[in-house]
């Protein structure tokens, strides 16, 4: 187990370093100058040059790379050009929003998706199964932004159950905070739960044809136990893969949804920072996302080992 963890931690290094280097290079290769952006149209070339020097952007690229590497390794991510705040202080508030939304959406996706998938599978080829599969296909086909607008129209504008947009942090009241992320989580979770429904259904159909299910039934075990304990246990293994993909999508910040609901999450921060050529923020956000995804993969491998004793860690 320790050896496995050590190996995985080593493997995380390239997973995190490669995107970071790419982002560093892409930002500096792309057109647009942060200094000119900050000073605006009225600035003289001299003013821009002074600011560039202050920001260290006039240094040769290799020197910038060395300085930047030092910053990353020491986790001093620099100061945002735009917010004038250390990136290290800035990121957590935005990450919290994304984390809250992602976890809510993921919970919805896994719980609803697994349940509907199991129901569809045990009612195979009946009207229930066909109906659920139809709904799942619809759920996968609906673009999230459009679903989000529909949800706003129904639950926020017409029924007035939830706010239309905006965000309240949990420190200002848990319920109020939950209400602000309810619709975004729903918009994100419905699509992911449709994906999981389909995966769970086909996985369950495979498992229900397995001889060990016949054995369990032949032992006189009630059908609820056969399904809930014997079938779902193995059917859940491939579903974990899909749920992992969902989680990595959700945790990297779903930009369109954060924009529609004006949620100050990682995705929105990243898009804005790219537009503002706010290099330290872009780099910091990418580092955080890369670290999260690498950690997520590790978590999924551990879940695999817990679900399936045939998987050996190491």
């Amino acid at each position, binding site marked *: 187990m320790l050896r496995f963890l050590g190996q995985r931690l080593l493997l995380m290094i390239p997973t995190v370093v490669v995107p970071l280097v790419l982002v560093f290079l892409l930002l500096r290769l792309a057109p647009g100058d942060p200094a000119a952006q900050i000073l605006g149209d009225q600035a003289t070339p001299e003013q821009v040059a002074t600011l560039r020097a202050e920001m260290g952007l006039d240094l040769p690229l290799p020197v910038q790379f060395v300085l930047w590497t030092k910053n990353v390794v020491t986790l001093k991510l620099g100061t945002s050009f735009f917010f004038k705040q250390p990136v290290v202080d800035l990121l957590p508030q935005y990450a919290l929003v994304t984390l809250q939304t992602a976890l809510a959406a993921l919970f919805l996706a896994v719980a609803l998706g697994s349940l509907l998938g199991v129901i569809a599978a045990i009612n195979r080829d009946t009207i229930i199964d066909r109906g659920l599969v139809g709904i799942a296909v619809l759920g996968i086909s609906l673009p999230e932004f459009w679903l989000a607008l529909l949800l706003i129209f129904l639950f926020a504008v017409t029924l007035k159950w939830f706010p239309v947009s905006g965000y309240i942090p949990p420190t200002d009241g848990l319920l109020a905070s939950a209400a602000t992320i309810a619709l975004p989580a729903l918009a994100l979770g419905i699509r992911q739960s449709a994906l999981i429904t389909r995966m769970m259904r086909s996985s369950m159909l495979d498992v229900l044809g397995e001889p060990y299910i*016949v*054995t*369990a039934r*032949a032992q*006189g075990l009630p059908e609820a136990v056969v399904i809930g304990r014997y079938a779902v246990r193995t059917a859940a293994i491939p579903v974990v893969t899909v749920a992992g993909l969902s989680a990595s999508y959700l945790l990297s910040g779903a930009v369109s949804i954060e924009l529609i609901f004006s949620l100050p999450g990682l995705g929105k921060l990243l898009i804005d920072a790219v537009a503002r050529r706010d290099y330290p923020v872009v780099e910091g956000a990418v580092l955080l996302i890369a670290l999260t995804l690498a950690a997520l993969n590790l978590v999924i491998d551990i879940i695999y080992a817990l679900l399936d*004793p*045939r998987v050996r860690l190491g």
Partner: protein
Amino acid sequence: MIAGPPILEVQNLSVALPISGRMVPVVTDLSLSIAPGEAVALVGESGCGKSMTARAIIGLPPPGAAVSGSIRLDGRELTTLAPRERRRVGGRGIGFIFQEPMTSLHPTLSIGQQMTDSLRYNLGLSARAARDRARELLARVGLPKERDLLNAYVHELSGGMRQRVMIAIAVSCDPKLIIADEPTTALDVTIQAQVLDLLIAMRAESGLAMLYISHDLEVVAEFCDRAIVMYAGDQMEAGTPVACLKTPHHPYTRGLVDAIPHAGETRARLSPIPGQVPALGFWPGGCRFQPRCPRQDQRCATRPDLAGVAHAEVRCWHPLVGDAS
């Protein structure tokens, strides 16, 4: 030597499966009965319907199957039971041993979890009592006590150990009848003998009735009281397995016996039955064996009834009698 009303009585059992849109018969009009303590063998080639018969008896035929006829366990009609009641016959009424223990045991539940589930649901034992009982059962089927097998998983056991676990599960709730569906086919020859010895010993110990499904008439002759030979879903001959081997009356049984290789034999080739088993859905009318039978004539176009020949029951118009063999 065997008396009392039968434990299992199957009458006119027919099973049909949906194959590409139409119902194809896989078992036709099969009747058998098993007295308490008796071991009856169902013998035949792959695809002759013997496993399907077992699945129908336990009430777990493949999805979409049509089952008709009467199945009585200890005098109780099973075919008319509500699904929930029918399910409860498994475990306490009938223990089932499957052919392939690797795939028939759950891959991600420990042996202990699989064993205790059935003990707890069928016998109402507490978790602790079920675990104690499971440990006893494992010892009873000859598994080493030193290894804590309750916490082991199927993939950690050898083939023989897996089948022993399977047997322990099948007998765990003291069923009246054991159905063993080719329990040794998936095992190495030496392990086959061990598992067979275990089954024979368990039967002697507890007087269990058994329906033993096999393709091997010689194995069956070692311990079964009666053998029913099936071909293409139909019963061809029934009698003591030794009689079936020594003096087969049905031309099909005769063909089977002649095809058995014997050690030390000098003939260069085995004598197979000419032709092939017809595919499902293409079984001939009348006697099922007629197209491959050396004795067939016009009469064979109608299905013969089971008739007593010597000490056996044979479904044949032209049974081999005495000197013919």
